[in-house]
């Protein structure tokens, strides 16, 4: 019979047997495992399996026939796919599941199972046909992918948490600093403002964020100096540090602010944003001013009785009785010297305070340098009886500076030379033109300075350990000298050797 199932199939076999054999061979050629179960028998046993099924499962035919499919599930019985299969078997429907099965050697494999019922003319399910593919590789790939994905997700979550952490860490820093901080976009609109800014300038975040800086608080932030800073200075001088701005705000009054601005140059989302730190130094300046006032008054008040003492001593010096002995005269002279020293100390203390607060005022004017040095040397020589000051050289130069301050430096260096060279008579002062500078050197042959102390002698209140016992002092004279010379764009330095004496030199730019 060449016809099979009403002519749907037409094999070349001469008998049904031939055709059946051909079909069986075709099934065996498939790489999908194929089984047939008999639904009419108890427990739906497998009645047929092809070669591929044997290959996939690792079982041989004789171990397969007669078993229910579930034998492939081994102990792995709680899969939801089982329920789907059972339901389809019960209802006689087809289905497709991916089910975990186990080979004979116990290895897990993923079985992609198509199951479809075979019905008789009355619609009764006589058989089920199962087609199976080993999709372990795919499943593993899928599983790996899922694992990768969840790993990635976890990592992203961690990263996000880290970012959130560092963001909240940063913002807590920003919120904690006692300095107003604004972030501006390139068009000077406020992106964010910290708590201290809002508090200092008595504004709310709503009134501030998103607004143009100049328009804040009814344009009370439209400060010409601020525009200058952001438009003219910052583009070419990034960052701008300690830019002082004074402004009268309608509600909070006059404020003195120190601005630091930084434009972000890093490529990326923050590029060209501007960080603007605003320090309110109104109060600090006020305190400094009051301290300065106090010191001015204190020094004035101290100097008034000192004037009287100095004056009366001079009167006494002039009216020494003829019969008075030498001791009388020399005691008076000594008192005069110490009164002068006390006067200098008071002046120096005031100077230190002014240097610290940056309030040292220079009244610069051109002056004849050689004349100033000569006069200063002569004045000191007049009081220094035990020493001989030798002035060498000339510059014929004009220097622009504050004469009284330069005299103060010369006096200080000469007094030191005398003080620290009690046993040698000669002090040399050299003046010379060096390039565009004038140079002054004061050389003594006194005790000298330790090499480690030479760097420190210009520090405020610094006293060399050994020196302090023999030569008491406050350690402010050289500090003041250094500051004065710096304020004149010059340099002050020392070369010294212990026991050999010291040379203090400074340069000043010529006019």
């Amino acid at each position: 019979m060449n016809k099979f199932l009403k002519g749907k199939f037409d094999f070349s076999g001469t008998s049904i047997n031939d055709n059946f054999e051909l079909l069986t061979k075709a099934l065996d050629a498939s790489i999908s495992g194929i089984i047939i179960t008999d639904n009419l028998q108890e427990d739906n046993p497998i009645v047929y399996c092809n070669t591929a099924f044997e290959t996939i499962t690792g079982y041989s035919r004789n171990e397969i026939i007669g078993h229910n499919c579930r034998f492939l599930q081994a102990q792995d019985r709680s899969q939801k796919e089982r329920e789907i299969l059972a339901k389809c078997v019960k209802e006689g429907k087809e289905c497709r599941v991916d089910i975990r099965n186990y080979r004979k050697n116990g290895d897990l494999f993923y079985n992609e199972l198509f199951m479809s019922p075979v019905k008789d003319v009355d619609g009764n399910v006589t058989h089920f046909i199962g087609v199976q593919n080993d999709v372990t590789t795919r499943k593993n790939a899928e599983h790996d992918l899922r694992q990768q994905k969840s790993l990635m997700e976890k990592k992203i979550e961690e990263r996000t948490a880290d970012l959130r952490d560092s963001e909240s860490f940063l913002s807590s820093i920003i919120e904690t600093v006692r300095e107003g901080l604004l972030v501006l976009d390139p068009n000077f609109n406020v992106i964010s403002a910290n708590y201290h800014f809002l508090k200092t300038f008595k504004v709310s975040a709503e009134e501030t964020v998103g607004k143009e800086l100049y328009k804040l608080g009814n344009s009370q932030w439209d400060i010409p100096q601020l525009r200058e800073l952001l438009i003219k200075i910052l583009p070419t001088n990034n960052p701008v540090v300690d830019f002082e701005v004074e402004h009268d705000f309608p509600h909070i009054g006059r404020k003195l602010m120190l601005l630091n601005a930084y434009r972000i140059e890093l490529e990326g989302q923050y590029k060209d944003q501007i960080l603007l730190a605003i320090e309110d130094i109104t109060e600090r300046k006020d305190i400094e001013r009051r301290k300065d006032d106090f010191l001015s008054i204190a020094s004035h008040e101290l100097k008034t009785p000192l004037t009287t003492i100095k004056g009366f001593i001079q009167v006494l010096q002039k009216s020494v009785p003829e019969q008075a002995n030498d001791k009388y005269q020399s005691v008076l002279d000594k008192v005069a010297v110490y009164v002068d020293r006390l006067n200098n100390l008071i002046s120096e203390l005031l100077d230190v305070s002014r240097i610290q607060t940056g309030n040292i005022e220079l009244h610069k004017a051109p002056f004849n340098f050689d004349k100033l040095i000569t006069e200063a040397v002569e004045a000191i020589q007049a009081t220094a009886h035990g020493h001989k000051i030798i002035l060498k050289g000339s510059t014929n130069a004009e220097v622009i500076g504050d004469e009284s301050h330069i005299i103060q430096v010369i006096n200080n260096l000469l007094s030191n030379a005398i003080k620290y060279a009690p046993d040698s008579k000669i002090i040399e002062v050299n003046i010379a033109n060096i390039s565009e500078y004038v140079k002054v050197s004061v050389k003594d042959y006194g005790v000298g300075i330790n090499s480690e102390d030479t760097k420190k002698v210009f520090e405020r209140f610094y006293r060399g350990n050994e020196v302090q016992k023999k030569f008491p002092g406050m350690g402010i004279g050289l500090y003041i000298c250094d500051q004065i010379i710096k304020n004149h764009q010059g340099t002050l330095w020392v070369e010294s050797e212990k026991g050999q004496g010291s040379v203090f030199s400074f340069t000043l730019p010529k006019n």
Partner: protein
Amino acid sequence: MKEKKIIICDDDPGIIDLLEIILEDTGHNIIAEMNSINIPSLIDKEIPDLLILDLWMPVVSGDQLLKMIRKHPKLSGIPVIIISASRDGEEIANQAGASTFLSKPFDIDKLIATVEAHLN
């Protein structure tokens, strides 16, 4: 040499005392006043040859007095020496129109020399 009239004004009695002791040896007529508020009427009455003023004084300061004097048609030519222990004293004195500034503490020889220079 004809005796000259010098008015001195300082709120500190020690300074007044000192100035009197120094200046009486010069042979001039010294009129001392501690209360600066009395100075305008005093100089108006006495027309001194020289005025020595402190800067920091209560009620009316030395530079205020000096500015008043410099604007006064009759008195504006009187030489005025300002003496002060204030660090900014010289600048203030010059701005107000002082003839000379001496910082406290001063050297008495220098004071005498300055006084004589302005009297001649």
